[in-house]
Structures are given as structure tokens and as C-alpha cells.
């Protein structure tokens, strides 16, 4: 009798296990998360991993995508660009993920790009970038230069600014952005003499680099600030900064010490979001400008719900290694969030996880109402979205002073603006 029961139980358990196993394989879809969770970029990129896991949980709680639960495969790029390519290969060839969300720096994106093109994968890229790239294997939810830098110039011009000083960290994003900005300023009738920071020309006299550049980790900004002070002496001047990371601290401290302020000569920074602000001297930055397609301070029910849901998720999540205190939301995080929902919409429209079908659906112009307002996908794999300009406040948030609705994402800007 007893043996019979145990046998029965055993068979039952086996059957249960088998059915569970098959159900698991059929009911989930693997999705890659490729960010640096260690190394120099970890401070910024870990936040994106967190918000992606939050988004997956949110979607899974509502039934998943096409009835399948999302199963994240999280890998660490470790701020090591060749390693990014290795990990991408692993995600595509070994794990066979349907889509990947990842990368922060342009160099990491450039390093994984061949892998995605070779395997016909799909990568969602969420961080502001320099443009001049358009791959059918990358969905750029990121801000293109005309969704961040040129609106900031428009804002300055409307404020009556006449002189523009370009300053940045020495790598591809600031260099390319400033060249586009130079063309844009000239097309708006700003004379070359009113653009500060210096130019580098090749033998034919063509400008190949505009603006002043400092290496990563530069600490001495005395000379540059003295130059800006003289540049701004005649009034109506402003600074456009693509300085990255912690070089902003010595720069803004020196800036304040030289008696320059947001009133006399405002600085708009493209690399300082709410997340970066946590390590910066708040007092010296008050009144300076930021320009993104999302700010945590956006006063809409959708954004309030997003911020509250994310905070609630942080409290309950059991994933190890997630910082729970003092968290904020910022543009790259929201663009990651929006990217997942746009992918979901594309999959549902295509009725399949097949990359080619999903891409076709994605390119047909899908919309999603995100925390930063409506975003719409475009034929060129970029997205149309709202752009906001904000003034920094002492509490690390931005007060929105200007917004541009539905700005079309245009990656190819070099040579687009013609001088008058």
C-alpha cells in the first residue's frame, strides 16, 4: 500500500516536474542586459540595470510580452570595451536572447555593433550620443544631438545670448557634438569670432575641431576659467559644456571662485543629470542649465506614478547589490524604460520575437506614453520625443524652464546646417 502511494507520488512529481519544465521553456523570453556593473562606468550604468529589472517586473506582473514572461540575462561589461563585444557574442550565440538593452559610452556601442550586425541581433541604446551612425540592428532611444545640443542653443539665442564658449572632455561625443554645434551656430548667424574655445584646422583650412578640450580626470581649470571670464567680459555670453564625470567639480568650483555665475554667464551641461548630480557641489551649480528629454521634476501623473513605482520597487526588490537609498530617476533611465515598452509594442504588433519582423513593426512608427511624454519610433531607428531645458536647484533637481515638443531624432547632422 505504502509503496503504491510512494510510486504514485513519484510519478505525480515527475509529471509535475516535466510539465513545469516545458511550461517554463514555453512561457518565458530571454532578454539581455549588457551594462558595466564594475569599473569606472559602474556608477552610472548600474542605475540602468536597476531600472531595466524594474521594468521587466512591471511587465511580467501584467502578463508579460505575447503571453511570455521576460527572463533577464544580466551580464557585466566591466567598463572594458573589448569585453562588451565578448559578452554581446555570448548573449546572442549562447543565450539566444530576443533583444538586448545596454551600453552607455559610445565606444562600448561601437565595439558591440559588429557583433549585432553579424548575428542580426537587436540592441536598445539609451544614452545621449553624437550621431553619425544608423544601424538596423540598434534602436537608438538615446538623445541625438538635435534633441539635446541644438535645442539648448535655440534657448540661449532666445535669451539674447550672442557669444558661445564650447568646452568638453576629450573624446568622440564632445568633439563631434561641438562640430555640429559650430555649424549650427554659424547657420544661425553667430559670427566665428563669437564662438570661443579655439579651433583646429587641417592644411586646407577646414575646421576639424572646435572648442576647448580637457582630458578625463583634469583638475586644474584656472586657465580656462580665466579665458572664459575675458570672453564673457562684454556680456551676453554663455558656455556649452560637454565635460564628463567628475571633472565638473573642479571646473564649477573654479568657475564660482572667479566670480562667474548663472546670471553673468550661464553654463549648459549635457552630461549632468539627476544621477550625476549626487556627487557634485550643489551650491556652485545652482541656476546652471541642463538639457535632456526627461527630468524627474516633470509634473505629470504618468511621471509621478513612474517615480513612485520605481521607489516602491526598490524597497521590495530582492536582487542583491541594489542601492536603495537616495535614488533618483534621470533621462538615460527613462529612455531604458521607454525602450523596453517600445520593444514590447513592436513584438506585439509583429506577433513574433523574430528580429526582422520586430524591426519592421518598430520602424512603422509606434507610440508610447512614457514619463517624459509621448515618444514615437521612426524609420531610422531613432525616436521622436520631447526635449526639456531645466535650471539646477540646490536639491539636485531641475526646474523646467523651456520645453520643445515632439523633436524628430536626426543622427546625420554634419554638413546639414549651412552658414548664411
Amino acid at each position, binding site marked *: 500500500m505504502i509503496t503504491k502511494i510512494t510510486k504514485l507520488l513519484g510519478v505525480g512529481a515527475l509529471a509535475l516536474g516535466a510539465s513545469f519544465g516545458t511550461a517554463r521553456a514555453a512561457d518565458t523570453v530571454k532578454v539581455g542586459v549588457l551594462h558595466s556593473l564594475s569599473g569606472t562606468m*559602474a*556608477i552610472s550604468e548600474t542605475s540602468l540595470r536597476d531600472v531595466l529589472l524594474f521594468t521587466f517586473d512591471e511587465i511580467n506582473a501584467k502578463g508579460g510580452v505575447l503571453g511570455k514572461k521576460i527572463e533577464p540575462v544580466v551580464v557585466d561589461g566591466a567598463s572594458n570595451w573589448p569585453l562588451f563585444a565578448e559578452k554581446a557574442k555570448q548573449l546572442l550565440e549562447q543565450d539566444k536572447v530576443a533583444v538586448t538593452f545596454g551600453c552607455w559610452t559610445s565606444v562600448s556601442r561601437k565595439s558591440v555593433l559588429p557583433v549585432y550586425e553579424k548575428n542580426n541581433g537587436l540592441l536598445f541604446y539609451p544614452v545621449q550620443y553624437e550621431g553619425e551612425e544608423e544601424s538596423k540592428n540598434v534602436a537608438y532611444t538615446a538623445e541625438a544631438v538635435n534633441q539635446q545640443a541644438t535645442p539648448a542653443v535655440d534657448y540661449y539665442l*532666445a*535669451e*539674447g545670448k550672442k557669444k558661445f564658449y564650447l568646452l568638453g572632455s*576629450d573624446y568622440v561625443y564632445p568633439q563631434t557634438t561641438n562640430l555640429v554645434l559650430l555649424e549650427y551656430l554659424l547657420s544661425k548667424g553667430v559670427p566665428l*569670432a563669437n564662438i570661443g574655445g*579655439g579651433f583646429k584646422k587641417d592644411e586646407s583650412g577646414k575646421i576639424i575641431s572646435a572648442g*576647448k*578640450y*580637457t*582630458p578625463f*580626470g*583634469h*583638475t*586644474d581649470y*584656472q*586657465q*580656462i576659467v*580665466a*579665458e572664459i*571670464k*575675458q570672453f564673457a*567680459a*562684454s*556680456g*551676453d555670453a554663455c558656455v556649452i559644456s560637454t565635460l564628463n564625470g*567628475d571633472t565638473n*567639480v*573642479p571646473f564649477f*568650483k*573654479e568657475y*564660482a*571662485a*572667479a*566670480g562667474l555665475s548663472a*546670471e*553673468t554667464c550661464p553654463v549648459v551641461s549635457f552630461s549632468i543629470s539627476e544621477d550625476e548630480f*549626487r*556627487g*557634485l*557641489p*550643489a*551650491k*556652485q551649480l545652482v541656476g546652471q542649465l541642463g538639457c535632456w528629454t526627461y527630468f524627474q521634476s516633470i*509634473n505629470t501623473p504618468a511621471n509621478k506614478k513612474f517615480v513612485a513605482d520605481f521607489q516602491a520597487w526598490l524597497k521590495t526588490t530582492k536582487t542583491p547589490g541594489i542601492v536603495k537609498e537616495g535614488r533618483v530617476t534621470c533621462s538615460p533611465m527613462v529612455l531604458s524604460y521607454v525602450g523596453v515598452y517600445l520593444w514590447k509594442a513592436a513584438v506585439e504588433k509583429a506577433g513574433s520575437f523574430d528580429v526582422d519582423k520586430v524591426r519592421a513593426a518598430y520602424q512603422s512608427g509606434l507610440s508610447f506614453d512614457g514619463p517624459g511624454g509621448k515618444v514615437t519610433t521612426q524609420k531610422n531607428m531613432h525616436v521622436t520625443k520631447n526635449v526639456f531645458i531645466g535650471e539646477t536647484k540646490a536639491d539636485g533637481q531641475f526646474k523646467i524652464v523651456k520645453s520643445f515638443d515632439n523633436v524628430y531624432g536626426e543622427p546625420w547632422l554634419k554638413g546639414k546646417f549651412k552658414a548664411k
Partner: protein
Amino acid sequence: MNFFYSALRLLAFTALALGSALAAADTARQTIARAALAEAPAQRIEIITLLIGSGDESIAPLLNAWKEDALFLYSAPAGSKIPVQLSGDKDEQGAQAATSVDTGQPILAPTGRPLRLIAADLTAVEHNGALRRAMKAVLDLLDLSTANVEKRVRAIQTIGSSQNVEKLPALQARAKIETAPAAQLALREAIALIQLKSPDTPTKLAALKELETLHTIASADPLKAALKEAETANHPSVANAARAALNAVDSHLMTVNFFGTLFRGLSLGSVLLVVALGLAITFGLMGVINMAHGEMIAVGAYTTYVVQNLFGEGMDLMIPFTRIGVHLPGAHLTGWVYQTYFIVAIPLSFLAAAVVGIGLERSVIRFLYRRPLESLLATWGVSLVLQQLFKLTFGSNNVQVSSPSYLSGNWTYQDIIFGWNRVFVIGFAAFIVVGVWLVLTKTPLGLLIRAVMQNRSMASCMGIRTERVNMLTFGLGSGLAGLAGAFLSQIGNVGPSMGQNYIVDCFMTVVVGGVGNIAGTVISALGIGLADQSLQQILLNPVLGKILVLVSIILFLQWRPAGIFVTRSRSLD
């Protein structure tokens, strides 16, 4: 002559405009209320422009409130719209007291109590760039009579650089009664700049002459424009005068840049000196290749951070390797008492770093005095351990250290900026160099240190407790690094890996100066600082400047491998 007529006409026009505004018998408040109620943006600008020249005290707060979205349209129960300003503290619902823009009196609710409104429920009165510029024009002229000299000078400069002929009478009126020297200068410049736009040649020439005497940096751009204009209009006398004025400005700029660069070089040299002096003792005198020197700097910087928070709001810390958080209560000081935190932090940074240094010496370095390579590797390891400890205790993000007000301003003489933090570091460097020199030459401890460093075994034979002297010397060197950290928190980042940014510069300074010689370190620090800043000034490129400095250091060391001063010491043999 021509000019005077046009000026008179302008005056008459302004008077008329003022007259018409007055004829409408509006107070400034009523005008602003009318503008807020106007529908079309153009109409708003027109009404706001009427305020130009008025000195009414209510204008500035109202226009500023408007710009900051704190002016609202309130739909009264009767159906009319009333422009209101919300002020005072928010209560639990977020409501604030509402005052009428029109009268400046609180609005009464039907119950007779002052009305309280919630900002989020109301629509702010809109404004755009053009309207804000119109407001700015009103505020600029308002600022001409503000009591604050600095603000007044800024307002005068703004008007001057706009070169708007219509504003000339207001400036000239102000010039008659202005008493502050800074504002008088600014007025002379602004008037001359506006007169550059005059169609009358003698006026223009007089203005150019005036600008030549003043030779301000701000006049460079308008002068260039005037020169171009005169050249195209074929006006040689004006062009020559403009050229002369530009030359005066240029030579002034050269002087400014020369002395500015000198000062910046001196201050950068002082920063290098402050960070390298500790290493000049631990590496230079003792011969320990201390790769953890950067972390001693970080200890000093974090000490400053902790002291700042103890004076202020308090802070939370994690005890490494446990999951226990500690809350350190703050003293909640404000004002100048709070600002003294930095003065308190300086000696504490020295002590904290000295204690860590002594601990390091006792636990690791004392076993490695005769083995420089091992000491390099061991201290490198210690530096990694310390960095990780900072991360575990304070978090991996950089922390914020605010500069006290006495270190964040500047003194400007003849357009050369002397930042107080930079003046401070020069004095600070001089102070610790003199201090170290006194300790080494005038105290019994200094005598012992020099004896041990010259010949350890001989000193030991003479009955000196060399172990103890080694420990104290290492503590002194580390403490000096802590002092550097306290200062660096005022100009740069405070984070777990901040030491890494300075360690290469430190070794470079000490090696160039000549290992074992503190005077060499002083000279090499100042030399590197000056070379770096001059090259930046000449090449206008910070990256190229730094590369050239490094290349010249390599060449210099090829020529003099032992540095500027060669020291003969047995401990170095």
C-alpha cells in the same frame, strides 16, 4: 550738434512716454496687473515697456515673481480674473497667502478671512523670451538706482554692452549723481560704448579716446565692430582712433594675461608643493617608495568631509565588513560658526593622516626599510585596501564638500583675478614649508630625523631610538599629505580614488627636485606649475601643455638624473 538734437528728442520722447503712462494714472502695480491680464504677448510687452524709467519699489519683486512662475491668474467667484501673487509659508495642503498684484493687499475670501490658494491648482501667467527681455530692460534701469554697488555696476555694464542709444539719457543722469568709484568707471565706459553708435564723428572720436584711456576688456568686441564699420565706411580718422583704442586694450590684455599666468602658475605650483611635500619626506628623506601617499591625501580630504558634516547636518556611515550603519549627529550650526569648520578640519586632517601613516609604518613599512621594491608593492597593496575601505565607508560616489565663503570669492585687481582659494593655497604652502623647515632644523626631533636619515646604524649606535624616529618621520610625512587633502577638498573631487590623480604628480615633483632635498621639491613644484600654466597660455591647449611639461621633465632628467639638487646620503646609496 546733431547728436544733441537727437538726444533732446529722445529725452522729450521718454518724457512723453512717461507722461502718457502717468496720464493713465496707473501705479506700477496696476500696470503690471494690466500686463498680466493682457491676452496677446505683444500687448504685454508694450505695457511692460511703459515701466521703463520708473523707480517704483514694487516692480522688481513682481517682475521676478512673474519670471519665476509665481504670478497667477485667480478666477474670482464673481467671474472676473484677478492677477495674484502667492507668498509666505505653505500649509499642509500646500496653500499660500494670496495678495492682489493690483493693490498689494491680501485678497479676502467670502468668509472675510485672507484667501489661501494652492499654486498647483492655478495657472501661472505665461512669459516668453521677448517678454523677459522687456522685463530685463525695466529691471536694468531699476538696478541703476539700487543701493548695492556691485549690482549697479553689473546693470550699467549690461546697458553699455547693449549699445542701445535710447538708454543714454538714463546713464548720463545717473553719472551726475554717482559717487561710487567703480560705478563711475562703469558709467564712463557704458556711455562711451553707446556713443560709439552715434552718427556724429566728433562724438565718436571722443568716445574712442575715452575707451582708449579706460582700455577695458569688455570694450574689445564693440571696438572691433566699430573698426570694421569705419573701414568699410572709409573713415580713416575714426578707424585710426579705433585702432589706437584696440591697441590699448590689447596691451592691457597682455599685461593681465602675463600677471594672471604668473599667479596661476604660482598657485598650481603651490598645490603641487602641498601634495608633494609629504612625499618629499617619506620618499625623499626616508627612501620609502610610498604608493599609498595618495590615499593619505584622501584620508585628509575625508576628514574634512566628516568635520563639515559634524558641524552641519550630521551623516550616516557604514562600518566596513558589517552591515551596521552609524549615524553621526551634526551640530546644526549655521552662518560663520559653521564656516569655521574648515579651520577645525585642517589640524584634524593632519592628525588623522598622521595616525593612519604611523599605523602603516608600524604594520608594514618597518619590515621593508632595506627593500625598496617590496615596499613599493606592499604600499601599492595598502593603497588598494584603503581605497576599498573608503568605498565601503563613504560609498563609491564622490562626496560633496562645500567651500566656506571666505574661500569661494575672489579679489580682482586690474582685471587679474586672485581667487581666494588660490591666494590661500600659496600662503598655506609657504606656511607648511616654513613649518617643516623649522621642525627639521630647529627642534630636537628634527635633529634626530636628520641624524637617522643620514646614517641609520651610526645614529642607532649613538643611542638614538631609530625605530621611534622612523615612525614619527613617516607620521609627519603622512600628516602633511593629510593637510594637502584638506585643501584639495576645496578645489577638486573628494572620492575613493582621488589619491590616484595626484600620486604621479607627487613623485614627479620630488624626483625633479632631487630626492632627499626639500628645497629642491619647492623649486621643482613652482617651476612645474609655472611651466604648465605658461604653456597652456601660449598653446591655448591644456592637453598639449601637459604633454610638453612631461617631455621636458624627461629631457631634464636625462641631463640631470639626480634632479635639481643632488644629495649625498648614505641611506640613498
